[in-house]
């Protein structure tokens, strides 16, 4: 079995366990051919959407992926400050953004993505009680996590950050950035190592970090426990 087939098998096996409906939005761009038909304009969008359809097709109809083009949805693009495509967004019914992916959920990133989808759909969240207990002490925050597909620790940091974002109902927002696909973002932050986590564009945590380190960085003090 090739690596690609193995990954598809994992997606198939795990997505079949989804028991509640959930919707994700993906922003792409399109252009018109001379005959007037529209095609996706961004270089990676076709491949990206094909990958996401694998998740959707194996979810027994419970995962819906809504593709929005930046050209046809300028207000949406403006509201969510869509700077590049493709972008995956996990947005709740009140329009609050929890998680943004500027990365394809492939390879090692399959697991954190599926876990985020499940938790976003309402599955139990291991970190939820403590996040809620400390929520008043957390300022609205954005965790930007720079990753690459080769990095063994990146999926683990992304998993935790995504779960924090969902537990906090978007008060902590996660942005997952593949810096090989978005090298300008890596350069902007001088990142030459992954995982590289930036909190509110101010504080940087380098390398593998666990839930305690992320929560401490968000709170800036001692953690209140809830169990």
């Amino acid at each position, binding site marked *: 079995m090739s690596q690609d087939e193995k990954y598809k098998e994992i997606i198939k096996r795990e997505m079949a366990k989804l028991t509640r409906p959930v919707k994700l939005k993906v922003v792409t761009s399109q252009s018109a051919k001379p005959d007037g038909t529209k095609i996706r304009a961004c270089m990676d969008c076709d491949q990206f959407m094909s990958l996401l359809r694998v998740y959707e097709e194996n979810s027994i109809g419970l995962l819906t992926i809504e593709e929005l083009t930046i050209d046809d949805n300028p207000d949406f693009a403006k509201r969510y400050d869509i700077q590049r495509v493709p972008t995956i967004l996990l947005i709740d019914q009140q329009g609050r953004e929890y998680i943004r992916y500027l990365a394809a959920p492939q390879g090692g990133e399959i697991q954190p993505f599926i*876990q985020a989808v499940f938790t976003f759909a309402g599955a139990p969240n*291991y970190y939820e009680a403590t996040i809620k207990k400390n929520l008043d002490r957390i300022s609205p925050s954005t965790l930007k996590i720079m990753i690459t597909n080769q990095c063994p620790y990146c999926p683990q940091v992304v998993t935790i950050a995504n779960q924090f974002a969902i537990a906090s109902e978007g008060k902590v927002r996660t942005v997952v950035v593949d810096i090989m696909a978005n090298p300008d973002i890596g350069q902007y932050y*001088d990142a030459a190592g992954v995982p590289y986590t930036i909190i509110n564009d101010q504080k940087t945590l380098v390398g593998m970090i*666990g839930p305690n380190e992320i929560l401490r960085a968000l709170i800036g003090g001692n953690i209140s426990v809830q169990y």
Partner: protein
Amino acid sequence: MFNIDMEGIDLEKIYDLIVLGGGPTAIGCAIYAARFAMDILIIGKVFGGLIATTHLVENYPGITSTSGQGLMEMFKDHMDSLSIPYISDEIRSIEKIDDYFVLHSFFQQFKAYTICIATGSERKKLGIPGEEEFAGRGVSYCATCDGPFYKDKTVCVIGGSDSAAKEALFLAQNVKKVYIIYRGEEIRAEPINKKRVYENDKIEIINNTNIVEIKGDTKVKSVIFESGKVFKIDGVFIEIGSLPNSDLAKKLEVETNKKGEIKINRKSETNVPGIFAAGDVADAPFKQAITGVSEGVIAAYSAFDYLKQTKIEY
């Protein structure tokens, strides 16, 4: 898959064995414990442990050649086949109540009759100016993670161990030049890797040299040798050994040696009944994935044996 629906995780249950750690040792222990029909749970900060960052594993019986990540994927498949639950968390304290232990994290608490500490080790730091400042901006502890950023650039690996040699060999695939900077006379790599290093035109060894500072602006630009020489470089990969993650054990009054490694006997027992230890955190002199797995497996058996002697239902 981890944690989805918190499958297999019961916060009320007293587990027969909780394994702390996420590397080969912890997984080897858990696989055997599962086969002994013990109620088990693995709690680890880093799934895969340090070996996940190794690009080449060629000394694990039955597997001619794979990456550390590849090996861990096989371990994970094996865990999944036995429905062994894994949680990404860090235990910060443990207390003994009656005949079981209570393990506290910031997120949950767990109960277990026995514990296997397989928390491994973490990379040693050089402790020199510039190391912390340029972490992630030219200073790295993981060639697998960060090697791709240095295509056609010049990097150095600090250290003379087998791991340092393997890091250099991995980096040489993409970079322009790799210098192994070692304080000793001759690198201590396994002969097979030493030969590969010597035969690789892109790798050069600078021996009998210590680095005293890492310099740069927004990214690393050079390292300073003890002699005062400024050596221009784009990336510094530090591979100078590791330190055992034994702080939790020390709080439990588990005996450690001068290096901070947990003292264990041939049954992987510590001085505290019900607490076992294995792998890089323990005091065996030769630390490999295979030896860690062996100690972890022995710890599982010893925990099983301990329960038989202390619990009526066993």
